[in-house]
């Protein structure tokens, strides 16, 4: 669904992205990994259209600039790291912002808002002011908003997640990533996620791309990418592996 060819971003001569080519298919969770400053967030910004790059970025064989704004918003959404609101909205009003690119009747809109809030477990604090929610609750509200935004996509949509679990406790992290994985499996979402926790990469990603200094180092399954040698080379950390009873590998 998403194809990046030779994407380069070099403001003032500094190559933050250097000839990056990746492909993401519908139904997979695709991890972007790398140490700090590797270019992960810059790459996500390039895909979301926040920065203009050289090279080509195509979603369903159409370059991003050829998409109509509203159509693109219905097929590509970004779950931000942390969202502040300048003036207080209720949680439900924040979710309703996902209606912006859609044309729905009032009844349809209200039904969809309820559905997405239920899916992300936000219903019980729907009427509370957004600023009074915890970091984890806010993230779930934002996820409900983003899912509403993508609910009318004609083809499988692409969801971009920038460190989605940074403000969440352990249980919430796994709930959120589990839900995202389920959306990819059951509804064919393409998901690109920046994740710092390599165990989460091993558990939830189907494929991943290791970036360093703006360049692609390797693209493969997480188990192949995250070898001890690579972790030592790119994160300067000597990791150890523990194999659990169910065969799952955990890095420590």
């Amino acid at each position, binding site marked *: 669904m998403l194809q990046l060819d030779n994407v380069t971003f070099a403001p003032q001569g500094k190559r933050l992205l250097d000839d990056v080519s990746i492909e993401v298919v519908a139904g997979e969770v695709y991890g972007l990994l790398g140490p700090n400053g590797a270019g992960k967030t810059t790459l996500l910004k390039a895909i979301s259209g926040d920065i203009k790059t050289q090279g080509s970025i195509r979603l369903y064989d159409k370059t991003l600039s050829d998409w109509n704004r509203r159509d693109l918003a219905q097929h590509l959404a970004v779950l931000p790291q942390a969202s502040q*609101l300048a003036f207080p*909205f209720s949680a439900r009003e924040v979710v309703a912002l996902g209606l*912006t690119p859609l044309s729905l009747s009032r009844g349809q809109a209200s039904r969809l808002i309820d559905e997405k809030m239920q899916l992300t477990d936000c219903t019980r604090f729907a009427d509370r002011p957004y600023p009074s929610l915890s970091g984890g609750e806010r993230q779930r509200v934002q996820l409900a908003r983003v899912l509403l935004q993508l609910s009318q996509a004609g083809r499988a949509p692409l969801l971009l997640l920038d460190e989605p679990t940074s403000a969440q406790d352990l249980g919430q992290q796994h709930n959120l990533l589990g839900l995202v994985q389920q959306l990819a499996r059951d509804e064919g979402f393409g998901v690109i996620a920046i994740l710092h926790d390599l165990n989460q990469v091993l558990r939830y990603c189907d494929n991943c791309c290791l970036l360093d200094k703006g360049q692609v180092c390797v693209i493969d399954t997480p188990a192949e990418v995250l070898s001890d040698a690579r972790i030592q080379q790119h994160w300067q950390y000597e990791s150890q592996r523990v194999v659990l009873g169910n065969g799952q590998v955990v890095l420590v």
Partner: protein
Amino acid sequence: MPRSVPLYAFALTGLLLVCGLLSLVVGAMSLPVLDSLLIVVDKAFDANFSQLHDYQEVVVLELRLPRLLLAIFVGAILAQCGAVVQGLFRNPLADPGIIGVSSGAAVGAIVAIVLFPSAWGSWTIPVSAFLGGLLTTLLVYGFAQSKNGTSVLVLLLAGVAISAFAGAAIGFLSYFADDSSLRELSVWQMGSLTSASSANLWLAFTTMLVLMIAFQRRAQALNAVLLGESEARHLGINVEQLKLQMIILTAVGVGVAVSCAGIIGFIGLVVPHLVRLATGSNHHYLLPLSALLGAVLLMCSDLLARVVVQPAELPVGLVTVLLGAPFFLVLLVQQRKNWS
């Protein structure tokens, strides 16, 4: 829609009607309520129900009614522009003056008063004020442009700098003005609704209507911008176009308001906050309710301005600041926990 929204809309409309009626009958000359109402009906439908004397009729139709209508239109324009500017810049302390439009309009008016007082007849001051406001806004907007888009921070700071420069220009022109220009200039700067005429009433009414429709159409986009500019872009909003549209519409709105009524402070700053406290920040309700409350507040301020020191009267801009500034401080003290 929160249940409180229709309730507040109903209450404000009631208040608008009651205060409107009071504005017609209260003043240096007290008039009978029913006949004052009937004379307005007579005028509208060419009937003959009212028992008012001719001189009383003149007071209602030529003096009080135009003033009352101008207060409604200007109050609604300023309050809506305030709500839009605060939302667009995601800054609770923004008001239309902050992008330099009020001070630019003041410079325009003062240039007209001092240098060419009768170039376009009675339109000289309004047209110069409007042009001054629009030019200043475009200048501030130009400063904030870069290849990455419009920087809100630069826009606000350029607005502060240009306003300071405009203040110096006003001081310079005042220094060279003669006594009569100086008096006209200081009265104009304090804001007044006495210049209500059928021409500027139509101008203010049309502007209010156009702004109400244009702002309401972009209410969802303004809501989205509250999340942040890139979030709004990801929701399919052309943020640069929205900013340009809203800034130009605000400049036109405030330019018209200032050209019809001089500088009237605090309506644009305080009214949207009051509405947010009552019904929340959703622009779908914030904009129309701000228009209603702005109209009511300016009308009440003008009523106070007319009756407090009668038979003389205070400039209405002075009353809005006298009421608005302490009120705003109370609001700040109440909200400081949330904003710290």
